């Protein structure tokens, strides 16, 4: 193989990766927009935390993982579930509380699970799942595997004791875990700097002798590269990493919360949208000549159709049987 051919193939592979990332981000965006509509129509109940604006974090980081790696997340996990390969239909059906949902309609928006995809939830207590991520890492090490576990949480979880207890133990035990802090600046309606003495989350890693990196969360490729480095550390040496990924949520904390108002201005939200991760990657692909407007439109239409299908599937799916009320309380 000539050097030129090798370069061309590498470029081709890179363009493919970027195209795939763009498609995944579009899928999350349109899925979440549909979820917002469905919520307004009363098809989704309870709490529903949307991922719009943060797409690059799930897409960039999960591109660095293998299928046999583990993923665990908070209650803002629709995006990660979709990227991990849980079908849009199964996720939407779960939001609708249907029997065909990925948790059989018993979990809901905050509790998406798929054992086969090693998607370990969907957890609703801020910071409560951070130790679980370390436990999965412990099991990997115990069994002598070379998998890793990526654990997503928001910046507000950093003020929780479980975060600190876990980082300490993950470092002491050399666990192959990537702690991915999605810093979207606000814990519900409270700006992080108002309640955190240390506002650079990555700095906390110093306390636990852990590697850390500050990452631009509006750039899927930057997130991908940083996660690759973290995965390498975890897979080869069992060393955990704390990634602080700076991102921004366009929507309110949950569907029942305002987009802006007392805690942030409309101007701020609009300003942040100029860094939109989808627009940025689409522009890059266009500039590289890997995708033209027609190609982008086609991709967008394809994803919209997939989301429409997901909604149809969820709508048409049955509620869980009444007998499901008492199943899965205890295992055999």
């Amino acid at each position, binding site marked *: 193989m000539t050097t030129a051919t090798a370069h061309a193939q590498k470029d081709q592979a890179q363009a493919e990766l970027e195209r795939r990332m763009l498609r995944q981000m579009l899928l999350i965006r349109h899925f979440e927009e549909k979820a917002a509509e469905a919520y307004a129509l009363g098809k989704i109940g309870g709490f529903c935390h949307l991922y719009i604006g943060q797409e690059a974090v799930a897409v960039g980081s999960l591109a660095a993982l293998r299928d046999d790696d583990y993923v665990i997340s908070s209650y803002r996990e629709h995006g990660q579930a979709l990227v991990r390969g849980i079908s849009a239909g199964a996720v939407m059906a779960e939001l609708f509380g249907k029997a065909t949902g990925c948790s059989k309609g018993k979990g809901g928006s905050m509790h998406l699970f798929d054992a086969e995809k090693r998607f*370990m939830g*969907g*957890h609703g207590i801020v910071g409560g*799942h951070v130790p*679980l991520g370390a*436990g999965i890492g*412990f099991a990997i090490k115990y069994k002598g595997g070379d998998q890793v576990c990526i654990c997503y949480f928001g910046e507000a979880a950093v003020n929780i004791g479980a975060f600190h207890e876990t980082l300490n*133990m993950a470092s002491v035990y050399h666990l192959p875990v990537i702690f991915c802090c999605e810093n979207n600046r606000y814990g519900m309606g409270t700006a992080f700097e108002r309640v955190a003495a240390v506002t650079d989350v990555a700095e906390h890693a110093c306390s636990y002798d852990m590697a850390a990196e500050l990452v631009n969360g509006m750039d899927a490729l930057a997130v991908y590269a940083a996660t690759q480095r973290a995965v390498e550390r975890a897979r080869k040496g069992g060393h955990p990493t704390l990634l602080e990924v700076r991102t921004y949520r366009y929507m309110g904390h949950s569907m029942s919360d305002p987009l802006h108002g007392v805690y942030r201005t409309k101007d701020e939200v609009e300003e942040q949208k100029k860094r939109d991760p989808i627009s940025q990657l689409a522009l890059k692909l266009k500039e590289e000549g890997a995708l033209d407007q027609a190609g982008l439109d086609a991709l967008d239409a394809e994803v919209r159709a997939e989301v429409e299908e997901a909604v149809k599937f969820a709508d048409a799916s049955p509620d869980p049987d009444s007998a499901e009320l008492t199943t899965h309380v205890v*295992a055999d």
Partner: protein
Amino acid sequence: MPTLTYRDALNQALREEMQRDANVFLMGEEVGVYQGAYKVSRGLLEEFGPMRVVDTPIAELGFAGIGVGAAMAGLRPVIEFMTWNFAVLALDQIVNSAAKLLYESGGQFPIPIVFRGPNGAALQLGAQHSQAWEGWLSHIPGLKVVAPATPADAKGLLKSAIRDNNPVIVLEGEMLYNTKGEVPEGEYVVPIGRADVKRAGRDVTLICHSKTVAVALKAAEQLAEQERVSAEVVDLRSLRPLDEAAITASVAKTNRAVVIEEGWTHCGIGAQVVDVIQREAFDHLDAPVLRVTQADVPMPYNKQLERLAKPSPDKVVAAARRVLYLD
């Protein structure tokens, strides 16, 4: 049959289960190098190594959660709390993670984990170190709760707990660790959910568990000697699931009951037992059911006050006399 302490019976159960299944590991404060705060894990680090006998920092919430995560990924953790008083810090992981993951995942994630350690008061440890949490823990669907009173039951129930595919709470006791009893060698399991009649009787049923079994047995002796009353002592052993059939069968025979527990009265285990009795044995009752519990106060330090706060054989005898209308 060999005679062992309760402590060594637990140790034997742990050792046998760790030999039997490579996925079983023990994690907690002081379980390894120090050989266990109460020496329940004596010798296990030497036999199984540091990957399977894991010393932790003092971080109950963190290591309980690591246990749950490890269980999600296929291991069978045994998490030791130095006492259940400290486990209160880990309740989020027990209640919100361990107990719910199977249900909220639609059956995808069973959590085979044991949380164990001493529960309730010892001697003069003060209010924060003298609490019986079974009422709280038994309230939660998704958990199983056992409270063995004898060395044999300690071994048999711990082995069952480790083999169970659900989170199982094992409530031990500082004051039980040194007690001795015959313990069957090798394979000996006590099924979860089965009560045990520790003393047969005709006139009144004393329903108890854990440390109060000894209290009830002593009361039964006093009743036999002083009142010529034949008391039946039913050791619940499992608090969730509760052996309703055993409770009902005994009360149907004796027509009277006293329920004894170390915990506080309000919403305690006894309240649940009394519910079973009124529901399943109403027509058999010849007297209202009475309860003997800890006084409704934080545990005092002073020796005399502490004695007054705890259930005692005298209090059980007094309650039995009342349900027998002997007063």
